[in-house]
């Protein structure tokens, strides 16, 4: 089992050099801290920027320069700004190489549920989640494999309201990394758990990656 930082490091290592990447709010944001400085990875924030730098501190804070989580950030050389329609055209048009998102649930065929708890009294709020889900060439999910009360979050079918259909390509969890393929769910890495124990936790049939 690996911790949040370990997971963020794993995801960062899988992002190709020079890729254009959108990191979702929360845990995915921490992936940025583990990207090699010379990786040439360019971060997109859906509120209208490519070339986003680290969080701004002290005198660098500028109320006009924030990320999608509304946290003050900085600008790297080669950055660009654009308006919201252009920014989401970039996402929807499939131009981002990778988008990393958190999730409540992922189904075996890559359906994503990450915007709505399903609670009837919740005030719904979707933001850019659905746009991110459909847009990027690859959608990586980062999450714990089990809920706090031990229920699996990788399921045959999502029970929470969906964010997008068949969009997730990889799931990084504390216990294992999964590839969602057209054919089935493939376990790529085990994080200190045996394959059979992992299979016993899930109702989804798993395959082991051929190496």
């Amino acid at each position, binding site marked *: 089992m690996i911790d949040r930082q370990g997971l963020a490091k794993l995801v960062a290592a899988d992002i190709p050099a020079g890729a254009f990447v959108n990191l979702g709010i929360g845990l995915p944001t921490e992936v940025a801290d583990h990207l090699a400085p010379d990786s040439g990875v360019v971060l997109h924030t859906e509120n209208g920027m490519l070339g986003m730098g680290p969080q701004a501190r002290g005198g660098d804070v500028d109320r*006009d320069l924030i990320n999608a989580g509304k946290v003050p950030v900085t600008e790297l050389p080669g950055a660009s700004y654009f308006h919201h329609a252009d920014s989401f055209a970039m996402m929807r048009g499939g131009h981002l190489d990778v988008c990393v998102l958190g999730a409540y649930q992922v189904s075996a065929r890559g359906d994503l549920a990450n915007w*709505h708890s399903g609670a009837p009294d919740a005030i719904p*709020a*979707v933001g850019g989640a659905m746009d991110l889900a*459909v*847009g990027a060439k690859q959608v990586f999910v980062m999450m714990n494999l089990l809920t706090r009360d031990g229920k699996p979050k990788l399921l045959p079918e999502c029970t929470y309201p969906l964010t997008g*259909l068949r969009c997730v390509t990889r799931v990084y969890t504390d216990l294992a990394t999964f590839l969602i393929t057209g054919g089935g769910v493939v376990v790529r890495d085990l994080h200190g758990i045996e394959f059979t124990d992992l299979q016993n936790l899930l109702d989804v049939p798993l395959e082991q990656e051929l190496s």
Partner: protein
Amino acid sequence: MIVHETALEAVADTPDGATVLIGGFGPAGEPVELIEALLDSGAKGLTVVSNNAGSGETGIAALIREDRVAKVVCSYPRQADSRHFDDAYRAGRVELDLVPQGNLAERIRAGGAGIGAFFTPTGYGTMLAEGKETRVIGGKGYVLEYPITGDVALVKAHRADARGNLVYRKTGRNFGPVMAAAATTTVVQVEEFGDIDPEHVVTPCIYVNRIVHIGRAA
């Protein structure tokens, strides 16, 4: 394009029941002074189209607190300290039309661009597409979405030139350019006046009706 002396003067004629497009994403590009002036104008029964539904006691939150808003069209009403929206929504005093952020931006763009409707993949197969027309094109599912236009747009820009061309600052650009193009009357608060290189103009003056100089928050 008319330069107004005060924000109130620029929005005073907003009628009850108007649809108001309000720029900004969080604090960036939020036209705070224009929203305050809209509150002072007394207009009520408003439909507010904006990414968020306000937080704290200022801006859209104040409009909702003072019961001026009948409906909010937005992508993310829930924020840290969005209690005025939360209270009004739970009490049934404000209607919510929840739109995925990219569909919101594209629908506003379509409003300004004269597009009658468009098929977007975002939201396909989700509860936000329930009741909407869908179509599979080239093997991919799409939802038909319609344009959004406003009677008024409230936008914050960085600089205007003498004709009313605009540039923005950093991520403060966000919804400003598409909202400016989608409203009958576009009201802009700017931090400064000055020349703009024609190559650098973001919002051409044709989309700008009224400008107020507010200056830059310290």
